[in-house]
């Protein structure tokens, strides 16, 4: 599929040939693009750029093109019903033409602009963009998701039928009752920071879930709960959760909207405000739950300096060492997500937690299995790795 139409105003200085072009459907899209590949017409320094021309339907190369000069090429080909799809640099060999319709077929040709000449390919065979309903690159994730959802549903159903599901003891969560009690005895408030992220972060959702349980305990003991927020949506949700928790233990009058308040969106402005709050109000217990960044140590060290009992929980692995060194208890990674379940002991939630444990066991088994397989037969292990992406 090669035609070399020399239409230059002077002989070419390097070995520039007509590009060999092929067109195929772009994978993993909704039938809106085609991928055009070509073999380079020569060394990149002999080519200025490529032009990719498109025509709907079937087409031959217009006859007069053979005699065209570079200046008249565009005019002649446009008159023949072709449209410029785009341009590519001398080093490119692929062009994705998007914005197409899956109801039409398209042909392409590529014009290689040399320093002094043009070489034009033959039109490609007609190609039609095809719609893909499933992004097969994510098949492994899809299978894992289905497996995991099935496990969650299975264990939730088991829990619903009254099965006894064991959860290991988590010291940080066991200490919550003691921490709230301590604040009550000292007559000081509890400080709860639900992280710095917005409500679309799962860690924040987990922090709010734990806040509900902490607020219930604070309500039972009649202890004031302070919740400074960096995000206004988190503040609104936290207000609702604290209000409902106080109501659930028969203390709706304890809720004060001023105690669940917005501070600032600025990261270190927030850290400064919360640190100041700790120094002024001297809370007996500090909770830092959710996603934290560099300010984690500012908060935890200030709390440590005030002598408060501190319980932290985060999924930010970079902040864990700071919390571990400055707090009395730290929920590490997944323990944060288990917090609400652990405290509420709701059977349905326990079921989901159990599924999580089994999935982890499966992953650990898979890691050991693959390591063993690599030791026994690296070739087979490599095949397995490729099969799972």
């Amino acid at each position: 599929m090669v035609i070399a139409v020399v239409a230059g105003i002077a002989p070419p200085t390097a070995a520039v040939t007509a590009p060999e072009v092929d067109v195929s459907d772009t994978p993993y899209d909704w039938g809106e693009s085609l991928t055009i590949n070509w073999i380079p017409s020569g060394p990149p320094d002999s080519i200025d750029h490529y032009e990719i021309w498109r025509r709907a339907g079937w087409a031959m190369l217009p006859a007069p093109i053979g005699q065209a000069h570079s200046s008249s090429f565009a005019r002649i080909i446009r008159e023949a019903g072709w449209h410029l799809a785009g341009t590519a640099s001398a080093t490119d060999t692929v062009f994705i033409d998007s914005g197409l319709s899956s109801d039409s077929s398209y042909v392409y040709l590529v014009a290689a602009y040399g320093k002094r000449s043009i070489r034009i390919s033959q039109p490609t065979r007609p190609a039609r963009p095809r719609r893909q309903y499933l992004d097969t690159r994510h098949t492994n994730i899809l299978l894992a998701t289905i497996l995991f959802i099935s496990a969650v549903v299975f264990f939730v159903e088991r829990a619903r039928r009254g099965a006894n599901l064991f959860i290991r003891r988590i010291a940080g969560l066991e200490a919550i009752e003691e921490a709230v009690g301590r604040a009550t005895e000292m007559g000081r408030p509890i400080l709860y920071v639900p992280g710095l992220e917005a409500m679309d972060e799962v860690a924040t959702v987990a922090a709010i879930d734990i806040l509900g349980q902490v607020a219930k305990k604070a309500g039972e003991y009649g202890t004031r709960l302070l919740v400074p927020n960096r995000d206004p949506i988190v503040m609104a949700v936290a207000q609702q959760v604290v209000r409902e928790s106080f109501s659930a233990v028969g203390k709706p009058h304890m809720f004060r909207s001023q105690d669940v308040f917005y501070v600032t969106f600025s990261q270190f402005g927030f850290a400064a405000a919360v640190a100041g709050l700790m120094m002024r109000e001297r809370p007996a217990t500090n909770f830092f739950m959710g996603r934290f960044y560099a300010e984690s140590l500012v908060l935890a060290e200030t709390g440590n300096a005030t002598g408060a009992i501190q319980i932290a929980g985060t999924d930010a692995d970079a902040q864990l060492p700071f919390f571990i060194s400055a707090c009395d208890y730290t929920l590490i990674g997944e323990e944060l997500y288990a917090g609400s379940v652990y405290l509420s002991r709701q059977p349905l939630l326990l079921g989901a937690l159990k599924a999580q444990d089994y999935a982890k066991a499966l992953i650990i088994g898979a890691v050991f299995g693959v390591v063993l397989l690599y030791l026994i037969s690296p070739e087979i292990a490599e095949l397995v790795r490729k099969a799972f992406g």
Partner: protein
Amino acid sequence: MKRQGPIILAFTIGMLMLVQFFTPAAFFKQAYNIILDWKQVVLGFTFILGTWSLIRYHYTKISRRRENWQYSYVTLAGLAATVTAALVWKTATGPYPWLFNNVQVPMQSTMFSLLAFFVASASYRAFRARTFHATLLLIAGALVMLGRVPIGAYLSGSVFGVKISLVEISDWVLNVPNAAAKRGIMIGVGLGMTATAIKIVLGIEQTYLGKTD
């Protein structure tokens, strides 16, 4: 309906987000982009909520003469000055960028620089070699720190006839035991996130709606 409405909404949007990840279908991509756009719009409005909360908090503090109530005047004055500067002189020139560059940025930098002192105090506590674990942490920490500074490149020793530098030991500590522990944590976090998301989408977890029992 007060609680069912949000659960239905969470289920619908959650399933939409899940499905759009696995299919290139145009409808799902459009819906995904529209939701992301709406998120930005909603976020803009929530700052009104946040500002109102801030004003009310400090107004209450001033009116009840709580401890250090005078500082609330500073906060409210700062808020009013910044808003006025942005509305009257716009944000590109005038007092607004001056306030940002000469007040907010230095204050944030000051808070950030305090980290150096907090790291020192936290390290002192963590590295006190009282237990076997703390001693192990101290040794690993010292090796990694020495391996990260220029002098570490000149310090090397011989183990069973093999010459090993502090840089190599430092890299090994970071890339093998440290990376293994971090990946273990990240796998747990990933599963925890997925489980929490599934619980919310299926309506099993409702604490974020205020249900605590």
